[in-house]
């Protein structure tokens, strides 16, 4: 059983990797010869990969026990949430300690619609994402003026402030008891757990495809630029405030969708489901998986689901008392977080990439970095943030010498600015 789980998640991550690759580091990803066999058009390529991933998920969930199906489904919903957070915090650099609030909004929206209108499941979830997205825009607007610790403080309060609203107006939101949700009815002879897990995993894949598209578009580029240097981004023509709000809206929509799914999984939506610790754990899992990486979302989701399982079984092995064992999970979680931040700041995905780069450089021979000389190495390059986790091994083509230029014709000379004005359409066949 355990081995099946492992292969399931590992394969899932594999599918995500192919999606993730083009956007994460090099924009000209379509040139890489390795991927030539897949359709060159990104939409088709992503759809093909997504269809394969979806089929694989179906296969895996059908082999799992109902209990493990529930866990697999949870992985799916956390992937959705973490992908959004990764866009917000990992890519556009806005720290959010309040992602759980968006999940809560999504969950309550879906549950209320289900209880009062009997809306279709797909529409429920769409509304969950939409309502959260609206909240994201509302929160994102003031957040555009804030940075770092100030933003962390605001989002922290958001996570703390929203759930009590449900307690206060308990006739609508069900108070402590919460709202009961009805899980979707499975078609045919599928069991309910497997069907829900399939839905959740499929939605995870769909979310990743959409987010990957966004990340490799001009919006993704704007996110990264805003994260690195707002002034330079603005001068390059990026509408900084709008970019930040878009990141918030995308993150919130993902959070809302995940919240709707969480409501279906747990069968009840109550404020107890969305404590401050949920937000903190989401941020931690995102960073542990690899901030800014969509594959990292899979790793983070696996950790979120399995770390409590593992630590409670560890507590059983150690024969700790019930009182103590309850705390073991939190202690392990915190310790893992600290050690990971110190030893592997790129998270799991960042570390894998480093290993990959190392193996690649061993195989690919020398040639890396001889253009990096003397003064240029001084400050930043040495400790340049592995945090970004976005770069793949650098297979540089040998730079043409920076020395005196070879003779150039007049037409090809600096900037060929006159062509620039007119050729917007002439090279559109790209």
């Amino acid at each position: 059983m355990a081995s099946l789980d492992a292969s399931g998640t590992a394969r899932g991550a594999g599918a995500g990797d192919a999606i993730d690759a083009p956007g994460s580091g090099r924009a000209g990803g379509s040139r890489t010869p390795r991927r030539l066999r897949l359709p060159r058009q990104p939409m088709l390529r992503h759809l093909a990969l997504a269809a394969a991933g979806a089929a694989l998920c179906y296969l895996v969930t059908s082999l799992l026990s109902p209990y493990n199906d529930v866990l697999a489904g949870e992985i799916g919903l956390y992937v959705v949430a973490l992908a959004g957070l990764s866009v917000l915090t990992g890519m556009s650099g806005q720290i959010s300690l309040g992602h759980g609030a968006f999940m809560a909004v999504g969950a309550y929206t879906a549950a209320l619609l289900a209880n009062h209108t009997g809306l279709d499941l797909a529409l429920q979830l769409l509304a969950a994402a939409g309502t959260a997205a609206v909240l994201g825009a509302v929160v994102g607007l003031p957040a555009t003026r804030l940075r770092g610790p100030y933003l962390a403080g605001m989002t922290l309060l958001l996570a703390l402030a929203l759930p009590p609203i449900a307690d206060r107006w308990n006739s609508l939101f069900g108070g402590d008891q919460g709202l009961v949700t009805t899980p979707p009815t499975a078609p045919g002879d599928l069991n309910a757990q497997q069907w829900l897990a399939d839905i959740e995993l499929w939605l995870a894949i769909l979310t990743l495809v959409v987010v990957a598209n966004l990340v490799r578009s001009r919006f993704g580029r704007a996110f990264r630029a805003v994260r690195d240097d707002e002034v330079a981004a603005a001068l390059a023509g990026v509408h900084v405030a709008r970019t930040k709000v878009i990141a918030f809206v995308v993150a919130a929509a993902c959070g809302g969708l995940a919240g709707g799914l969480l409501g279906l999984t747990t069968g009840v939506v109550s404020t107890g489901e969305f404590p401050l610790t949920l937000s903190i754990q989401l941020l931690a899992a995102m960073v542990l998986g690899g901030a800014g990486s969509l594959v990292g979302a899979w790793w983070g989701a696996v950790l979120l689901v399995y770390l409590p399982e593992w630590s409670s079984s560890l507590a059983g092995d150690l024969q700790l008392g019930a009182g103590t064992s309850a705390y073991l999970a939190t202690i392990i979680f915190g310790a893992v977080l600290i050690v990971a931040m110190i030893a592997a700041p790129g998270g799991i995905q960042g570390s894998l990439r480093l290993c990959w780069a190392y193996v690649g450089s061993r195989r690919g021979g020398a040639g890396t970095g001889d253009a990096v000389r003397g003064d240029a190495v001084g400050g930043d390059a040495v400790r340049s943030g592995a945090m970004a986790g976005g770069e793949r091994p650098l297979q540089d083509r040998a730079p043409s010498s920076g020395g005196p230029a070879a003779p150039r014709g007049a037409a090809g000379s600096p900037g060929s600015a006159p062509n620039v004005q007119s050729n917007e359409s002439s090279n559109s066949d790209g």
Partner: protein
Amino acid sequence: MTLFVDYSLNGVAQGMIFAALALALVLIFRATRVVNFAQGAMAMMTTFGASTLLEHGVGYWWAFVAALAIGFVLGALVEVLLIRRLEGRSELNPVIVTIGLLVVLEGIAGAVYGNSSRGFPAAYSQTGLVIGHTTVDFSHFDVFVLVAVVVLMLANLVLFRATSLGLQMRASAYAREMSRLLGVRVGRLLTLGWALAGLAGALAGLLTAPTSSFSPYFMDLDLVYAFTAAVVGGLESPVGALVGGLVTGLCISYVGGYLGSGLEPLGALALLIIALMARPKGLFARPPARMV
């Protein structure tokens, strides 16, 4: 009207406690540019230390001093063992590490002391003062808290404004490499900054514990409000922390009193958003001098 007076006084008393922890946050932020989310949990640990000493028959003031000392050492240890290793990385990393520390410390305290809340003695009487013939919602202990916090703020202010140690701490917080080139032993100063903040946090814990249910999580909410207070005040200014604490305390007291205690965090959120919209870097922040 008396209700309003009581809410106001209660707000001041609460605000002072937020300010105490906020001052610790300001101290660390000013000395090392890190917001310490584990500040509350560290204060909780030192207070449990004091509580253990009290149970073993140690006198109150000895336990009080011991807690401050533990806070000092704990702060230094955290800097040397954890924070130092994050140098030069993104600002997200220290946030995550201090959150990890928060989780670990609360886990340890829970495992050792259990989750139930216990009592913690106050230095002075907690019954309301009698002014004229009415009893107001402000006790001798609240007066002690007020005085302690003002002293803490003044000490903080003097340290940074008037001593060469403070000058070195400010310099090393903003420009580590350049400070080292000028001969400042940056490493030691960062440790000292955390140690002093640990001490201030321990004081906050000792002041908070008698008025709240003392459990491994008793500082969580206080940390959030202290953080609100510090951010409203500008994260850099001791006076700002005090004023921020006061404003936050009053806001929460009014919201809790008139609208119901569940909405207190929402009130704090509204306060934070309004304050930050007016001054994105806090009320007491100095404006930046140059754009590009």
